[in-house]
């Protein structure tokens, strides 16, 4: 248990410290205000002010996923280039927990993304979004961010095992935004596509966050939160198992430096 907690805590504190020093960490934030302008102008032009809350959730989740792709692709290879990888692997802490902890720290970027989206909607369009169910909203945002970190851990494992997969790293953004319904609820999709989307934790998280901003009651909140956590946990289990298996093999064959 101790290696897990130590890995998680070390990763989280390291990443938050690094993010306070590196401007590059905030690259994913650039899109948030512009996406808010694009989406909000679309719904306001169409006279659908009832959809305005969607336009602050979507940029927040898009920033979250963009950051996940960015960090999962770079993190381990940067550790190797900076000479950190070998001592980290040799240390007693859990390496998958360390990666997950770091990615959890990276997910803090969703907070300024949400603030930016809310601010742009309010300042430039005069449309201040109200959070009608703050508890559900916070729980949905936290579980979605954690599940994003878990999925990013799985992606990190995938990129390290199959470096060729990093070619498609940049191509995973839009398909995910589309399939998980960050802007358009998956309930509007054809049945077969909605079924596919429900496998993605982000579709549950996006629905729940939108409902938490709406004035009506949030139905089945506990079940939907559980789905976000369950799908995130499955991704984390896959990522951890893959990382452990890869590191065991790399230690045995002495190929860690080739990561």
């Amino acid at each position, binding site marked *: 248990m101790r290696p897990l907690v130590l890995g998680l805590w070390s990763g989280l504190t390291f990443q938050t410290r690094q993010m306070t020093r590196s401007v*590059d960490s905030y*690259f994913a934030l*650039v*899109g948030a205000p*512009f*996406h808010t*302008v*694009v*989406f909000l*102008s*679309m*719904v306001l*032009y*169409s006279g*659908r002010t009832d*959809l305005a809350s*969607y336009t602050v959730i979507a940029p927040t989740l898009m920033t979250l996923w963009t950051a996940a792709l960015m960090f999962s692709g770079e993190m381990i290879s940067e550790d190797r280039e900076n000479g950190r990888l070998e001592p980290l692997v040799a240390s007693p802490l859990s390496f998958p927990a360390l990666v997950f902890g770091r990615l959890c720290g990276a997910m803090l970027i969703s907070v300024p993304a949400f603030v930016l989206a809310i601010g742009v909607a309010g300042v430039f369009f005069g449309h201040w979004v109200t959070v009608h169910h703050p508890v559900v909203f916070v729980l949905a945002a936290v579980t979605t961010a954690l599940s994003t970190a878990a999925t990013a851990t799985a992606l990190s494992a995938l990129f390290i095992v199959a470096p060729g997969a990093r*070619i*498609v790293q*940049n*191509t*995973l*953004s*839009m*398909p995910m*935004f*589309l399939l998980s319904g960050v*802007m*358009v*609820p998956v309930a*509007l999709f054809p049945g077969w596509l909605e079924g596919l989307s429900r496998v993605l934790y982000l579709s549950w998280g996006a629905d729940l966050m939108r409902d938490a901003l709406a004035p009506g009651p949030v139905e089945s909140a506990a079940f939907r939160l559980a789905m976000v956590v369950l799908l995130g946990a499955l991704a984390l289990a896959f990522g951890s198992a893959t990382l452990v298996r890869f590191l065991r093999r790399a230690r045995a064959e002495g190929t860690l430096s080739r990561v």
Partner: protein
Amino acid sequence: MISRAATTVRQAAVLARVDMSVIYTWRTWLFGWLVRLLCQVVFYSLIGVLVGDPEYTVYVVLGAAVLICVAETMMATASTCWDRHQGTLGLLAASPIEPGLFFFGRSLQWPASATVTTSIALLAVPPFFGVTWSPWQVPVLVGIAALASLSGYCMTLVLGSVALVFSGARNVISTIATLYITAFCGAVVPLHYWPAPIRWAAQALPATHALEAVRLVEGGGSAVQVLTALGLMVTAGLAWFTVAFFSFRLVFARARAGNRLLD
């Protein structure tokens, strides 16, 4: 003079071709890159479906399809900096080439690929959202996609010349430019929705006129109207290329004078 310029562009284009073959195989281009771009068109088009206005959905799907050439040609901002990262910029500065022409050829893979992806996006996605194309419209749309990609590329070269100096900000520059154009060129909401200064600035964007041309083709506009829109687009593209040409000259002149660009 012209043959020397053509040689510079041709030789630089060799790099463009090689870079493209290193970045993508035909499989990763087709099943990765093209799928990502088509998902982008569908993503924006579904917002039209969400708001429940079929006419507006058609407006958005055409806009989103044209934006593909913006997204792809914007990649030239980063690829313009590759010579700096590979350490070959010093050799280029020492050579007698015209830098604007070299960098025009250097990233030609993006407008070439954008012509194909934008054509596919324009021809394949809109029919799912209520647009029908006649056979005669197909070559016209492909032609517009080619000219839009080339004009947009010329604009990107100006950003590339800036990114060459501030290479650490290359991705931020291209992302902001792409999203600015997405928001304010009339792709997702008509230009009259925005205040006058934004409308005026939009006239300098080749994408604004490309969209106008595509919408005229879809809506049955006359050939004169379509050609006028294309003329404005090409004029904007040429103006951007002229700015890029002198901007690269300035960057190289300063690099040769020793402003640490070649370090």
